[in-house]
C-alpha cells in the first residue's frame, strides 16, 4: 500500500514536471509568436485617444482630485508653517 502510494507519487512527479515544462514551453513559443505578430502590426500600437471619456461614474472625478490635492497641499503648507 505504502509503496503503491510512493509509486503514485513518482508518477505524479513525472507527470507534473512534464506538464509544467510542456505548458511553459508552449507558452514560450506562443509568446514569441504573439510578439512577432505584434511587431508586424506595430503601426496600430498606440491606443487611439478615445474621443469620449468612457466612465459615467467618473463624472466628478477630476474636480474631486483637484479639490483633494488642493486641500492636501494646503494642509501640508499649514503643517510646515506650524
Amino acid at each position, binding site marked *: 500500500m505504502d509503496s503503491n502510494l510512493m509509486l*503514485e507519487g513518482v508518477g505524479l512527479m513525472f507527470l507534473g514536471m512534464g506538464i509544467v515544462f510542456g505548458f511553459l514551453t508552449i507558452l514560450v513559443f506562443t509568446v514569441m509568436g504573439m510578439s512577432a505578430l505584434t511587431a508586424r502590426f506595430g503601426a496600430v500600437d498606440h491606443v487611439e485617444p478615445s474621443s469620449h471619456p468612457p466612465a*459615467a461614474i*467618473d463624472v*466628478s472625478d477630476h474636480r474631486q482630485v483637484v479639490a483633494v490635492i488642493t486641500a492636501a497641499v494646503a494642509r501640508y503648507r499649514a503643517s510646515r508653517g506650524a
Partner: protein
Amino acid sequence: MLEHGIEALWQSMGIANLEWGQLLMVLVGGLLIFLAVRKGFEPLLLLPIGFGCILANVPVAGLAENSVGQLLLGGKPEHLNELAQLLGVPLSEVKAAAGHANGAALSAAKALAHNLGYEPGMLYQFYDVAISTGVAPLLIFMGVGALTDFSALIAKPSTLLLGAAAQFGIFMTLIGALALNVFPGFDFTLADASAIAIIGGADGPTAIFLASKLAPDLLGAIAVAAYSYMALVPIIQPPIMRALTTEAERQVVMSQLRPVSKLEKVLFPLTVLLLCLLFLPSAAPLIGMLTFGNLLRESGVVDRLSKAAQNEIINAVTIILGLSVGSKLQADKFLSVETLGILALGAIAFCVGTAAGVLMGKVMHRVSGGKVNPLIGAAGVSAVPMAARVVNKVGLEANHHNFLLMHAMGPNVAGVIGSAVAAGVLLAVVGG
C-alpha cells in the same frame, strides 16, 4: 491510479472538452475586451464582463456553476446516482432534471452536492453574493449618487419632464419584445420583456438589478446590450437629434442656470426619497441607495463616507459585479436567437428614448416660448455624462458659442431617476 490520473488529466484538458459554443463565447469575451480596451466602450464594466465571459466558458472548470453543476460536471457515478434518486429521475435524465429544478428541489440538490463535497465555482459565488442578493448594483447606485451633482436639476426642475419622456424607450421596447414572440424561437414572458425593456433606461446598475429580479437567465445579454449601447450613444443619438429638430431650434441659446444653495442640495435627495416612499415603494431600494449616496455627498459632514462610496466601494464592487455579469455569458444560455433579439431591441430602445426626449424638448420649446433648446431632451435617456456631452457637441455644431452641457445635465440626471421609477413600476406590476 496513475493511469487513471493521466486519463483524468487528459479528460480534464480544455481541448478535449471544448464545445463550439464555448469557443464562440470565448471570442465574444475577447470582442468585449477589445471594444473596452481599444474602442473605449465603457471599459470599467465591459472589460471585467468580457473577462468573466471567457472564464465562465473555460471547459470542465465550471467556474460559473453551482455545486449541483459541479457534481454534474465531474461527479463520481455513485454521486450522480444519489442526485438522480433525489430528483426522482433515471440517471440518463439527471442533467436535464437538475437544470430545471427550482424551489425546494433545487435547495435539496444543492445541499446534497455540498454534503458530497462539491463546491460552487468562483464566478458562481461572486454572482450569488453580489447580484442574486441585489447588493452589488445597489452599492454602485449609491456610488453614482455620491458622484452625481443634481444642481442643474434643482435649478430647473422642469427638465425632469425630459427625463420622464425619454423613458418611453423602455416601454416601447417592452412592446417590441412581446411582438417578437410571433417569430419562432422567441418566447418572452412579461417578466422577460420588462427586463429587456429596461435597457432603454441607459443605466447599468438599474438594468442589472431589475434583470436579476425578473429574468436572471437573460441578465448577461441585457447587461452587455445596456453597456454597449451606452458606449455607442455618440454614434446613435446625433442623427436622430438632427432629424427631429430644425437648425433654428438647435441654435437656441439657453439662459444661465441660477445658483443652487447648499440647503437645497441637502434637501433634494430627501425629497426624492419621500416621494418614493409615498408613491412607489417598489423603487425604494434603487431610489433609496441613490439618494443615500447623494446625501452622503451633499451633507458635507461625512466626507470619509462619501469618498468611500465614490471610490473604494464602487471600485471593488465594480470588479466583482463585472465578473459576475460575465458569468451569465455561458454558451448554453447566451447563444440563442433570443440574444440577437435583445441586442436588436436594445438599439431600438436607445433610438426611441432619444426621439421621445427630443420631441418632449420640442414641446417644452414651444411652451416656454422658445427658451428651451430641444436638443437637451436627448440627454433624458441618462447614460451620464455621455449623453449630455453629445448634446453639447451637436449644439456647438449649430452655433459655435452655444454651450449646452450644463443645461443637458438636468435631463441627464433626471433620466437616472426616471429609469429607477420605471424599474419600480415594472417590479411592482410584473415582479409581484
